[in-house]
Structure formats: structure tokens, C-alpha cells
């Protein structure tokens, strides 16, 4: 990257650890994860179910408390105890889009309340007229008619409901949006609409996205950089192009080999690579997190890293 110096770090995660349960039942969902997200980029987190990718997103937005580590937003710590003003500020700046638009909207509320809900708790008093103006602006920004404000969620299709979910995030005028599997529950043709909408909004408003998904084919299309998570541990982090050109970690390669291709010739002789963590021998030679080429990090021990270096040169 040529403009490395100019890029401003918007959000920085340092040594994040999230545990669930107590004592004997304690389960570490996220283990020592660190990364930076630059302003204006789309940062992808990919992994299987149970890998902890959703937990990372939820810990950033402070739904799950972290047991260790910190999250810095524009250099300021936002996890743990923070002042009330900062709390409000962060709530406004960081918003979330959820996976299943059928489950994430309040069925008993009308669209105007669903979209405006964040405004009520923002601490700022808005008059009714201001609120209505903001709601209809947010709705038209996502390509819905302002008249829809008086309807209930069940009157909308899946794609429209996801747009309502995006409008609800936009009304707070956020800088940073965490999108947790925003298109997995949608039909293929509607996926394209939602992806296009997200990228247009990014261009217009300079939004920064954290895009969480299990599907690398979508990530290749939307992400600038991608982090691969396995069982709560980050195993690889690279520029999108680098990752697809030189996938190094066996888990990344397994994920990549599983991506379905709309190309029968290619699919016919495709081999699916299954990742087995037992293949690593970390008993003596402990794994480290190493930058193997500029901007491309991978986890491995000395022996593996030597192999990875050869791969990169190829």
C-alpha cells in the first residue's frame, strides 16, 4: 500500500479476549485477537459458525463484555467503564446491521418507530417534526418510500426488511457499521441489491464497515482486508487480493476450497480441503503471529512459516 501513512486508524482492537460461563464451564470464545480498521475501508472477518466472529463484532459494540484487552475508537478506549458522554458518542458513531431481517425487527412497532428508536435514546431531544424528517430521509436513502413509515414490518419482503435494518443504523449518522452476515438470509437476487446499497452508502458517506461472514465469495467482492478466525484465534490477516492469491494458513485454504463456484468445469475437478487442527505440531515449536509479506500476517511455528515464505515467493 502506497498511502500507508495517510490512512487513519479508526478502530483498534488490542488483545481482545471474551469468555463465557464461569469456572469449570468457562469457555474462551475469542482469544487474544488484535487488529486495526482504517477509516473508509471494509474490513472482513471470516470463519465458520462457532469461530467467534460474531462475538468479536458484539464485543466491539459492547453487547458482550471483554475479559481482557481493549478497544480503541479514534485512539480512545471505549470498552469497560467510560464516561456517559463518551458512551452516547460511541453509541451514535457505531451501529450494527443484523443477519436475519425476519427476526431483527420489532413486529409490533411501525417502521417509523423502528427506524427512529435510536434517536429516542440518543440523549438529544428531537421534536416530532425533526424526527419524522430524519426517518423519511433515512428511508429514502436506502431506497424505500417515506410512506412506508406508517406500516408494520410484516408487510415487507426480506430485502425491504433488510433495508429497514440499514435505515435504522443510518439515522444515527454513524461512521462505523458492523454488518453481521447482512446477506446470508437473503435470496441471491436480493443479495446483490443489499451489497450495492452498502457500497453506495460507503462511497457517499465515507462509512467504514466491519463485515462478518462465513462466505469468502462475498468477501472477495466487498472487503479491502480480511481476517480469518478459527476457534476464537486469528490465523491469517491480509489484503483481499493477497489472501485470495496466496492463502497460506491451511484453514484459510479449507474455507477457500469450500466456496461454491458457478462454473461446472472448475467444480468438476475441485477438491475440498478439510482443515484438521491436529495437523499442527505446536508441542515444542510454539506458533507466532508474523508479518510474512507487507500487510499479510499469518499464525504458525518456525517450520510452517518457512513453508509459507516459500509459497509467497511463488
Amino acid at each position, binding site marked *: 500500500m502506497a498511502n500507508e501513512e495517510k490512512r487513519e486508524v479508526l478502530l483498534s482492537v488490542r488483545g481482545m479476549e471474551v469468555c463465557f460461563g464461569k469456572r469449570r464451564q468457562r469457555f474462551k470464545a475469542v482469544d487474544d485477537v488484535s487488529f486495526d480498521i482504517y477509516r473508509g475501508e471494509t474490513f472482513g472477518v471470516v470463519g465458520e459458525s462457532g469461530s467467534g466472529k460474531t462475538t468479536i463484532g458484539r464485543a466491539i459494540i459492547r453487547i458482550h463484555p471483554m475479559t481482557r484487552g481493549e478497544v480503541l475508537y479514534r485512539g480512545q478506549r471505549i470498552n469497560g467503564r467510560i464516561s456517559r458522554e463518551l458512551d452516547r458518542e460511541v453509541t451514535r458513531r457505531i451501529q450494527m446491521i443484523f443477519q436475519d431481517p425476519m427476526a431483527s425487527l420489532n413486529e409490533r412497532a411501525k417502521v417509523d418507530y423502528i427506524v427512529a428508536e435510536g434517536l429516542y435514546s440518543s440523549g438529544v431531544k428531537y421534536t416530532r417534526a425533526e424526527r419524522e424528517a430524519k426517518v423519511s430521509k433515512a428511508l429514502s436513502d436506502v431506497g424505500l418510500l417515506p410512506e412506508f413509515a406508517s406500516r408494520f414490518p410484516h408487510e415487507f419482503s426480506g430485502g425491504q426488511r433488510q433495508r429497514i435494518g440499514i435505515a435504522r443504523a443510518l439515522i444515527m449518522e454513524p461512521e462505523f457499521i458492523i454488518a453481521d452476515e447482512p446477506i446470508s438470509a437473503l435470496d441471491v437476487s436480493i443479495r446483490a441489491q443489499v451489497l450495492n446499497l452498502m457500497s453506495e452508502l460507503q462511497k457517499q458517506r465515507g462509512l467504514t464497515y466491519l463485515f462478518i461472514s462465513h462466505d469468502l465469495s462475498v468477501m472477495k467482492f466487498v472487503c479491502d482486508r480480511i481476517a480469518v478466525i478459527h476457534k476464537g484465534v486469528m490465523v491469517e490477516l491480509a489484503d483481499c487480493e493477497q489472501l485470495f492469491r496466496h492463502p497460506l494458513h491451511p484453514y484459510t485454504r479449507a474455507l477457500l476450497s469450500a466456496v461454491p463456484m458457478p462454473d*461446472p468445469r472448475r467444480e468438476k475437478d*475441485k477438491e475440498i480441503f478439510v482443515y484438521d487442527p491436529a495437523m499442527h505440531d505446536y508441542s515444542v515449536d510454539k506458533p507466532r503471529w508474523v508479518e510474512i509479506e507487507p500487510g499479510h500476517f499469518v499464525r504458525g511455528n518456525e517450520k510452517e512459516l518457512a513453508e509459507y515464505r516459500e509459497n509467497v515467493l511463488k
Partner: protein
Amino acid sequence: MSEPILSVRGLNVMFNLRGKRLHAIRGVDLDVMKGESLAIVGESGSGKSVFVKTFMGLLDANGWIDSGEITYNGEKLTDYKTEKQWLKIRGGEIAMVLQDPMTSLNPLKTIGAQIIEAIELHRPLRGRQSYEEMLSLLRDVGIPEPERRAKQYPHEFSGGMRQRVVIAIAVACRPKVLICDEPTTALDVTIQAQILGLIRSLKAKYNLTTVYITHDLGVVANVADRIAVMYAGDIIEIGTCDEVFYDPKHPYTWALLSSLPQLGEKGENLYSIKGTPPNLFAEVKGDAFAPRNPQALKIDFVKRPPYFEVSPTHKAKTWLLDPRAPKIEPPESVRKLAAEGVSGFGE
């Protein structure tokens, strides 16, 4: 490929919704060949699930077959009146794997009991024999330690493992035809690849004919011999896998293909289909896709296109194939797919 095992002729399915009539399947013809693997692809609401439900007599109470016939191995399924007749077909001849493994198992019974139930319902095995058969089925679908797992309840299984159990139940009665309705939509890509591989290997092992239903063309390239594209209750294009991917003829198939992110160019907008599928309460005039097709011809709005044959295995319902039609090229991403395939996924 041999003779058809299941053939559908001029099928029309109607639903009665709050006094209004919905024409869900509009005159579909289809032959499912013995031993093949057929994929039916379409958006939600295109009628693909309703269509296969008619094979098993599973239409909801407010739906009925208005006209047309379905023949399975010489038997006219459309003449069946009673549930008793259907029970011969369901499970024993045609079995189904549903989308969501979270809801298709009984949470109150162990996995083993549920599989044994299916075995004893359709086959003359009892006691020890059916227990052994259940264990071998669990092994077949790739569940490790079957003795221990058989005693567990569905909540103790992950999504992928549950889908394996559902598949075991489906093949337990030795069906001839296995219908998989979005078998992997609720699963991760890695698990999806495993489940599709599993269905393929079972197909070979038990000589099954498989019918996949999906909305994602990306998924079926690997598993389907033939692909039928469904839109607004009609099969608008059907051909071999290669024909549909590399030489699609119908503008709707083009649209479905070019909206796949695998084919998108980064930084550019993905192609997305404008508008919504037609309202099937009203009569559809002409080509059902015309209102959403920016390049639709005049005749598309007036007259419904018949099938035009592209090759003996490939036909499509679009006026573009009429000799008098102007030449319209498929979009660039579709042409690129035919020429170079998909690239950039780590070689």
C-alpha cells in the same frame, strides 16, 4: 440417461388465499430421468417448493392441482385421492430433505429412535436388525461413534450433523428419488460443501435420482447434471449444467448468473434484478419476466413464448430465440464466465 422416472405434463397448481385465487404453477412440463441429478433454481416465491411438494401430495390444504398430470413409474399420482395411497409413495419411493435441520427433527426423541422409526415404517426389519441398520446408516452419512450418538437428542448435534441425520432418515426407507429442498441454505460454506458431497456419494451408493431445489446457482454447478430455471411458476429454461452456465439463453437466467458476487468486479455494482416478481393473483400476460427485463421486446408483453429448442437437451422460453428476434447479447459477466470461467480464488 434412460427413461423418465417421474414425468409432469401441463401441471397447474392453484391456491385459495382469502377468497382470491393464486396461480402458483402455470403449466409446467418436466421429465426427471432415472438416475440423474436435477436442480431446480429460482427466487423465493417462484414456486419451486410448491412444485416438488405436488410429487408427494404435500400441498397445503388450500392448494390443489387444477389440471395436468404427474406420473411416477407408470403410476398416475394425480389420480391419488386418499392419504393411504400417498403413503406408498412418501418416504418409500420419494423422500425429501428439508431446508432447516433445526426444525425437521423431533426434539423429544433420540436420533436413533427417529431413524429406526423410518426404517420400520417402510422395511421388514425389526429389533436388532433395524438397530444395526440404523448404525450403518449413521456411518454412511459420516457421523462418528454411531453407538453413542444414536442415544443423543437433536439439541446435542450441530447444524451440519443434524442435516446428516435428516439425510439418514430420508435414505433409511430406500427411496428411488431424493428431493433436497435447499439442503444447505442454513449451513456454513464448509459444511455446505461436505453435505453436498455426502448427498452425491449416497446417490451413487443407493442409485438415487436426486432433485435439488435452491435459489443459488453457485451451489449447483458441482452437483447437478441438468438445471431447470423456474420463474413465476414456470420452467423458463432447462438444459445440462454446462449449457445453462456457459450458454444461457433466457434473460432471467442471465440476470441470476450476473447477480452472483463470484462473478462481480470489485468496486463496480453487482447486477441486480429490478422490481419484484409478478403478482400471481392476476393473470400473467406474455413473458412473466418482461416487466423486469430492461431489454424486453414488444412481443414479450403480449404473447407467452413457447419453448424454443437450442439443442436436444436445452430449451428456453424466450422470444429472443425466435428467428425474427433482434440479436441481444448476454451481459458481459455471463460471456466472461463462458470464455474464462471464474478466477481469482487461490490457485
